[in-house]
């Protein structure tokens, strides 16, 4: 049943490609430099293709079915976006070509910068970061430099709510700053009292606050303006983790609320495909005060001759990446945005939020939902804790969902909710799909009582049975041995 490794189907002398004959006189190879082994596999094109086709068939994607992976916004990826990114006039451009020869590409980037700025309420945008976390690093380094430029060398503390995504504290450390955690209150908001106390304690050392809003519980903080205000009053800046922007397109602009900097996850909100883990794009928007710190180059139109040019902001933190960003991803996001317009975007968020609330309503009463009394935004967090099924954990429920043909939600995150099941349906799912998913979860709750082993040994209808993750971490096998000299 299992597919052999590509190395296991290798046979000496086979090759899946053809290359031209050498049409120039050869030059002797430099002495002592030429390798005498190269343990790559040798396969014919037919075997190569079958291998990857079969592997693909062991995978589940959004095109396979419902993929409610919370915080990841697994919406449908329009196929026109794929065609767009493959237009040769985009796909074959060399990044170091003269600006005059890439005016169309620069125009696309400029318009994307401007659309994102408008949607977020920001003064300027960089498209360079390759992912959300990369955008965070960009933003936090900018906040740091902003304070340094004002002589505030003592500012080295970042407040990070305990509900934050792991990338927020990790980014903070990577930027050479210290994390101070802010607890959440009983309604799932930032605990205002605690925040006040922490600001009182750390005020002059504050770089700012990293806030995800809607937060990872799927909730829009009820005290948002006050929180931002408190941080600003203490001289801090507010970073917005925009991973959850899918809830607020055309609903509210973070810049209007006082966020100073925010990253967009283009691969979530603007539906560029997730690629099995990437590539994404983590554009960053900033207020006017931070615009000069953006990493560059970004695109600007020359006032002199109207030409589009690369431009390095004067106080830039520097480059965060070679070249200019994940251009192929940007083309997809641009296409998506151009097809939606303002009304279309608002419809996206309205439907994403309605879908989440509908699912929450359907599960309420059977699965505990810590903040289920509140209206959620684009997602909500339930718990895999079932009445009369003490031995059953979230992991079992998740694996059993596979048998019903669904991708499980995000599990065990956010960390502040025990046995979390973080469910994000997105706007591209129909009521029928949501109903089928809810029905499955309700049925699983019954199975948990009636036939708990069915869950514990799930999945039963996947290409493999439950995998031993402990063994993998203990007895590390990271490479087909003969390939790495083994």
């Amino acid at each position, binding site marked *: 049943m299992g597919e052999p*490794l590509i190395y296991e189907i290798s046979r000496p002398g086979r*090759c*899946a490609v053809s290359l031209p004959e050498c049409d120039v*006189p050869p030059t002797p190879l*430099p002495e002592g*430099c030429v390798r005498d082994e*190269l*343990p*790559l*596999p040798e396969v014919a*094109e037919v075997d*190569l293709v079958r291998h990857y086709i079969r592997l693909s*068939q062991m*995978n589940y*994607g959004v*095109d396979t079915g419902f*993929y409610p992976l919370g915080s990841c916004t697994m919406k449908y*990826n329009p196929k026109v976006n794929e065609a*767009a990114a493959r237009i040769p*006039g985009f*796909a074959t451009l060399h*990044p170091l070509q003269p600006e005059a020869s890439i005016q169309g590409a620069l*125009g696309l980037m400029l318009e994307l910068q401007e659309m994102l700025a408008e949607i977020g309420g920001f003064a300027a945008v960089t498209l360079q970061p*390759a992912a959300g*976390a990369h955008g965070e690093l960009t933003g936090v380094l900018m906040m*740091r430099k902003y304070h340094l430029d004002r002589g505030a060398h003592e500012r080295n503390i970042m407040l990070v709510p305990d509900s934050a995504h*792991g*990338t927020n504290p990790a980014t903070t*450390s990577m930027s050479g*700053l210290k*994390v101070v955690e802010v607890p959440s209150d009983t309604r799932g908001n930032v605990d205002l009292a605690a925040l006040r106390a922490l600001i009182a304690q750390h005020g002059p050392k504050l770089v700012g606050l990293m806030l995800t809003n809607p937060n990872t519980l799927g909730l829009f903080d*009820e005290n948002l303006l006050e929180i931002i205000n408190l941080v600003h009053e203490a001289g801090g800046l507010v970073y917005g983790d925009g991973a959850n922007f899918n809830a607020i397109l055309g609903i509210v602009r973070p810049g209007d609320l006082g966020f100073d900097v925010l990253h967009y996850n283009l691969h979530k909100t603007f539906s560029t*495909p997730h*690629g*099995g*883990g*990437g*590539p994404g794009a983590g554009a960053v928007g900033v207020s006017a005060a931070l615009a000069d710190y953006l990493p560059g180059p970004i695109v600007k139109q020359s006032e002199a001759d109207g030409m589009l040019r690369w431009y390095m902001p004067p106080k830039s933190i520097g480059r*965060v990446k*070679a070249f*200019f960003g994940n251009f192929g991803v940007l083309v997809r996001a641009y*296409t998506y945005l151009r*097809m939606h*317009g303002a009304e279309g*975007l608002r*419809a996206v968020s309205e*439907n994403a*939020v309605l879908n989440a609330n*509908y699912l929450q309503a359907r599960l309420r009463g059977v699965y505990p939902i810590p903040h289920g009394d*509140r*209206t959620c935004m684009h997602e909500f967090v339930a718990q895999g804790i079932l009445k009369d099924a003490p031995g059953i954990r979230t992991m079992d429920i998740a694996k059993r969902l596979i048998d019903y043909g669904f991708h499980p939600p995000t599990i065990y995150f956010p960390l502040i909710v025990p046995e979390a099941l973080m469910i994000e349906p997105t*706007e591209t799912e*129909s009521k029928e799909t949501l109903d089928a998913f809810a029905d499955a979860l309700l049925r699983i709750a019954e199975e948990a009582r009636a036939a708990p082993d069915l869950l514990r040994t799930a999945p039963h209808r996947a290409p*493999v*049975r*439950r995998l031993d993750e402990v063994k*993998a971490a203990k007895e*590390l096998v*990271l*490479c087909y041995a003969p390939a790495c000299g083994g």
Partner: protein
Amino acid sequence: MNYIPNTDADRAEMLKVVGVQSVAELFHDVPAAYRFPPLTLPPALSEPEVIEELNALANENDDPHHLACFLGAGAYRHFVPSVVDFILQRSEFFTAYTPYQPEISQGTLQAHFEYQSMICALTGMEASNVSHYDGATAAAEAVIMALQIGRGKRNKVILSPTLHPQYRAVIHTYTQGMGLEIAGEDLIGVALREPEGTAGSAALLDALAGLLDQQTACLIVQNPDFLGRLYTPAEMQALADRVHAVGAQFVVSVDPISLGLFVPPGRYGADIVTGEGQPMGSPLSLGGPYLGFFAMRAADVRRSAGRIVGQTVDAEGQRGFVLTLSTREQHIRREKASSNICSNQALNALAAAIYMAAMGKHGLRTVAELSYHKAHYAADLIGKIAGYTVISRWPFFKEFIVRCPQPVALINEVLLDRYGMVGGYDLGNDYPDLQGHMLLCVTEMNSRAQIDLLAEALEEITTMNLERYEGEVSRG
């Protein structure tokens, strides 16, 4: 167009279940004063309209698909077999995310395990992660890993001045909060002062080694370097020994295609090998998405960043694959994580895996040899043109430097306009001493006819009246 299946009728039913009257009510937590702002965006387009607009934009570009291209400098036009993109378009691959649920992600996981194996084979190393954002950030993450291996006690980093200038820039950006001493970049003069590199003496490597001390966390060199120079395994091993003598990490950034032909860093003492994987199956695409590959010693894996796939078994004892060592990562370890990286360049890693498997040992060697021979043929030819001097008198792979009789930007403008060619990289952008020097790149995608035409063009340009172009270039 939007991609929302539900109709008004569906929404009405759903609102009833939710228990509200209207969708707008769901947003009561949003401060009223800011709720529902009008957005000034261009009007929505239908699919045929957006395709037309995109084609119009694409037509404003001069693309190397239709032109001969001699530009490299970190992004390379190598052949991508049709199978690569064909497989990448499988929905099951590209519409999946990180394989958190391994039972329905064996496709991604096994393909990435194979990717890791082939990266090890290519670099001569023991372990590999799945990807970094690109060659530049992979280099920066190598520095950070070296710092961690140095337990934060070593805070000096030595960068070769001939490491890609943008990689050096990214290392500076990434580490700006870490209080490091970054040395070595001012040694460019040494690199340029060695005309007789063919003799095997590499004064630059010597000079870099001279900076090593007990504070040094790592030393990074690129091979072939940004100027195209190929250091021999012997030279590199000598340097590695000196790096190791002070207990530092030896990091090598490398063009993966060169490894089809040349001894890999794993054979000359590298501790970490990184590089830009774009030439292995990813389109040029104006600089991204690309692929930062990252290989290392098995012993250092627990200090590394990024996704790693490990082999295991399922409940029935069948081989299977999972993400492993997640305890290094941000979602578990938060502020103590080895990096903040989460989404990466997984699909580009898949492309590289398909590319490597398609090429195999013979194909990759052929690509490397073709590039080598054609580049040397081009250097020979151009070196004979009056007014041009090939200053790469050292061993090189596919890139070499030509001193030009006119500003490089001007020559490039003429090449594009009159000959339909994308010329080389203007080294004056990064190295003031190299004003008027062009870095030319030749790969298997350049036919002899193209090379001959380039040489002819360069010769003709020396006798042309270029006034018309000068204005444009100075404005540019």
